[in-house]
């Protein structure tokens, strides 16, 4: 299984699938296309962890209103920990067929002002809201599959890496359409740290300059998902 995910992140090409587009997994999703694909009818919800969703011990402040962390997070964390490992997200073998998975892109997982990014996600979603993809650490060369779930009503998305059910990554679908967005990383049931997801541009063809996304000029309007 890991070998197959390795191909996604390092080769970007899957034998027999979309040979004309080796960078399919790098594609980003606009909110409208994602909402239509995953049948999420509402406007996008963007969260800035540490601003409108703040973790303090056993309490989460959602728009300054205290909620117990267990009440707010437990269902999401359990769903991400227990979801069955989905298959690798592949483009359809026939481009005329509807796609089972929509790629959300390749993201660096980093912290602000904490050096070079060394951890990366490829994330994709299917119509049921299941998240699949891969995680890679370039320090240790670890490759792990990703498994997760989106709660469509709140648009909260949470996933785990491999078999590790202690560390859960949480953000919103709206955040996953952005080039840079905060993400809550839950370590066990009691510790959450705010990290960043930074979209990685599709690698440039050999000999051509890398095309970098424009830096966002203003943050998206914040709205907090309810428990």
């Amino acid at each position, binding site marked *: 299984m890991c070998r197959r995910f390795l191909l996604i992140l390092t080769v970007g090409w899957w034998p027999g699938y979309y040979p004309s587009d080796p960078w399919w997994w790098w594609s980003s999703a606009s909110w409208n296309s994602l909402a239509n694909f995953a049948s999420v009818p509402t406007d996008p919800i963007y969260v800035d962890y540490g601003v409108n969703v703040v973790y303090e011990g056993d309490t989460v402040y959602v728009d300054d209103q205290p909620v117990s962390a267990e009440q707010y997070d437990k269902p999401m964390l359990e769903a991400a920990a227990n979801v069955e490992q989905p298959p690798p997200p592949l483009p359809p073998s026939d481009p005329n067929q509807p796609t089972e998975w929509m790629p959300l892109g390749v993201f660096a*997982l*980093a*912290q602000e002002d*904490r*050096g070079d990014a*060394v*951890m990366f996600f490829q994330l994709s979603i299917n119509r049921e809201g299941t998240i699949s993809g891969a*995680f890679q*650490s370039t*320090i*240790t*060369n*670890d*490759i*792990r599959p990703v498994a997760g779930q989106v709660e469509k009503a709140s648009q909260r998305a949470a996933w785990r*890496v*491999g078999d*590790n059910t*202690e*560390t859960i990554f949480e953000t919103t679908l709206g955040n996953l359409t952005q080039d840079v967005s905060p993400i809550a*990383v839950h*370590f066990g049931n009691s*510790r959450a*740290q705010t990290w960043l997801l930074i979209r990685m541009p599709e690698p440039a063809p050999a000999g051509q300059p890398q095309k970098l996304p424009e830096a966002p000029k203003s943050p998206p309007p914040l709205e907090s998902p309810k428990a």
Partner: protein
Amino acid sequence: MVGDWEDADKGDNLTVRSQYSWARGANFLTRNVTVKRGAETTLEGWQIIGWDPIESRIRSWTFDDAGGFSEGRWTQEGNRWLQRETGVTADGSRTGADNTFSKISDDRFTWESNNRILDGAPQPSIGQIEINRVKEHRCHVSTISSYPDRGVVARLLSF
């Protein structure tokens, strides 16, 4: 860095004490580190820091009493040193971290650890911890003067 250093944060009842000294010839720094919870020693480790003339950089090799070991490559940025460390635990899990040492004065520096990974899973970052020289053990500094022609490590890690 030669001398005794201690973590200033006593809130968690953990004490991390490091003793840096020169190995014979002053080409390698050796570090003994002891982690205590209260009076009980919970971890002991050993580190050797030296200059790699091929890579032209400082490198380090660390071993702990639980059977894990790691190696680090050091990069300087002003008063800060970044140590990128990779290793294994006794059970065969791969580890990785970016550790930053920031010199505040001759007797004080901060340490923080980010991009931590264990067995393929990101780990919580450790925020800045202040490390202070233990004054009563400053006698270790005198050992430097035993080596008038100190090596690259001594010139670079001058705290």
